[in-house]
């Protein structure tokens, strides 16, 4: 069974030869090829070489195309900062006053280096692995992107008190999401991975979420492929039932402390549940501890045909020992 077949069987609930898995090793590719992150996140070729190294070392069933939301924000005009051994971050949002929302326009794909980085990264990955692996392409939720463009506080304020600006911003980010998401799929993504760091019960109220649902429904319905909702770095169970009902959503990645049983009870049985090994915490774990956590998850989901082992939250840190990751991979592959 190839990785792609394994993932496809999980989507339909058919038996697989072993438990399927994926890990967020986008940043870790830079570590494996000893590449500076400032170069890695600018060069589709270097990034691709990093992912080739990921396949060589760990061979996950789902490969993840370039993952960096600040780069997406940069395409809109936000300023970035690059740090050694970390993914880039937003130094200064493009909007610092509400009146500047008029400046918000969709980036031009042909002239934006940041967008081209994503697109070429997917093309490279697809060219080599399309027939053997599933490819998950992260893209910022249209409801989350504004938090990077104007800062979280201003986006919360806008959602609470400025309905007209909210509508204008949501139309722009939704159109961008649809255009970029469909281009990812055209270039070979098997599905989109949509983290919702902002659109979670930890950040927004029920009322705000209810107001955002129509925008998400409309945007997701225009995507020409499946969508995986990723927890980003937040708990999402409180909204999971409504995420699961959005158009094209096939899977949900849970936060490490969330319970699969609870998620299963509030979502339909065909939704694939993924998770929930803490990716950023990998660096702090001994091999024994990592294996123990891994086995606990595998035992819990042993009889669930719609389950994929995955790291939750953000990237696995650059400094994580290769052996710790390998220990978890071997545990999954040998699990019966």
């Amino acid at each position, binding site marked *: 069974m190839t990785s792609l077949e394994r993932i496809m069987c999980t989507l339909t609930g058919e038996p697989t030869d072993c438990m399927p898995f994926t890990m967020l090793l986008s940043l870790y590719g830079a570590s494996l090829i000893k590449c500076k992150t400032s170069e890695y996140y600018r060069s589709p070729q270097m990034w691709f070489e990093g992912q080739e190294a990921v396949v060589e070392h760990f061979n996950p069933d789902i490969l993840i195309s370039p993952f960096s939301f600040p780069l997406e924000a940069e395409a809109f005009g936000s300023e970035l*900062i690059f*740090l050694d051994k970390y993914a880039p*971050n937003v*130094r*200064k*949002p493009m909007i*610092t006053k509400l009146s500047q929302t008029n400046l918000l326009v969709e980036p031009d794909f042909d002239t934006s280096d940041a967008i081209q980085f994503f697109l070429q990264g997917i093309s490279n990955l697809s060219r080599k692995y399309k027939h053997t692996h599933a490819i998950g392409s992260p893209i910022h939720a249209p409801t989350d992107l504004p938090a990077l463009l104007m*800062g*979280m*506080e201003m986006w*919360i*304020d806008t*959602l*609470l*008190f400025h309905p007209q600006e909210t509508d204008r911003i949501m139309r722009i980010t939704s159109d961008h999401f649809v255009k970029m998401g469909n281009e990812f799929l055209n270039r070979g993504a098997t599905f989109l991975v949509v983290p919702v760091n902002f659109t979670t*019960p*930890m*950040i*927004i*109220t029920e*009322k*705000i979420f209810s107001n955002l649902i129509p925008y998400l429904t409309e945007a997701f319905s225009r995507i020409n492929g499946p969508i995986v909702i990723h927890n980003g770095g937040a*708990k999402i169970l409180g909204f999971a039932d409504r995420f699961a009902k959005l158009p094209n959503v096939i899977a949900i990645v849970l936060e490490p402390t969330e319970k699969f049983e609870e998620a299963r009870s509030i979502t339909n049985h065909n939704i694939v549940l993924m998770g929930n090994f803490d990716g950023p915490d990998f660096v702090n774990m001994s091999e024994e501890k990592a294996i123990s956590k891994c086995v606990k998850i595998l035992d819990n989901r042993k009889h669930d045909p719609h389950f994929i082992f995955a790291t939750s939250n953000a990237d696995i840190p650059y400094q994580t020992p290769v052996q710790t990751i390998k220990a978890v991979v071997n545990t999954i592959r040998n699990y019966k």
Partner: protein
Amino acid sequence: MEITEKQKILAELISEGEKDSAVKMLTDWAYETTFKEVIFNVLEPMLVHWGKLWMQGKLSLAHGYLSGKVAEEFYLIASTDETFRTNKSETKGTIILGNIEDDFHPLGRRLVGIYAQAAGWNIIDLGSDIPAEQFIEQAIAHRADIIAISAMMFTTAKNIIKVRQGIEQAGLSEKVKMAVGGAVFKLRPELVGEIGGDGTADTAINAPELFDRLMKMKQK
């Protein structure tokens, strides 16, 4: 109406995002009783309770933001009330608050301001992207007891060193304590000492306790 009933109504209005109605209701209650009564018995207990629920993951950040906005607007109205001004007890001290130069992540800072004000501190909030010199100038102008600085990332946290240098150069190190906070200090606690901070708090709601500690250090 019982105080608990008032707190419940206020919580419902804030949860629904009805900021203006919440402020109006607090103001009406204040005119029925006193601003002091409403602040100390209704608003502040609710802020503390919500802060705890937020830390436990039972309320969203937007709830915290909303309650902060309500408190901010109500404090402003209270400050125009002559009786309240006359009766207002002495503040614990003055804090100059701001995000350091190049830092544009204000949410944590604003929450610190709200909780500290609720706890009795006089807050001078300078905003985001504040150069070191401005912190020092304002500390001198307002005879501040504490300079509280927020930074989210390592790169911006390093700019705080300039504030420490400014404090030393102005001969204020005995008079002004420097509190630092933000995501980077939770990840790298050793950074507090490295950039010259006198202390940090891991959440906004714990900031008033930190300020109390720093004030005691100062008085020793």
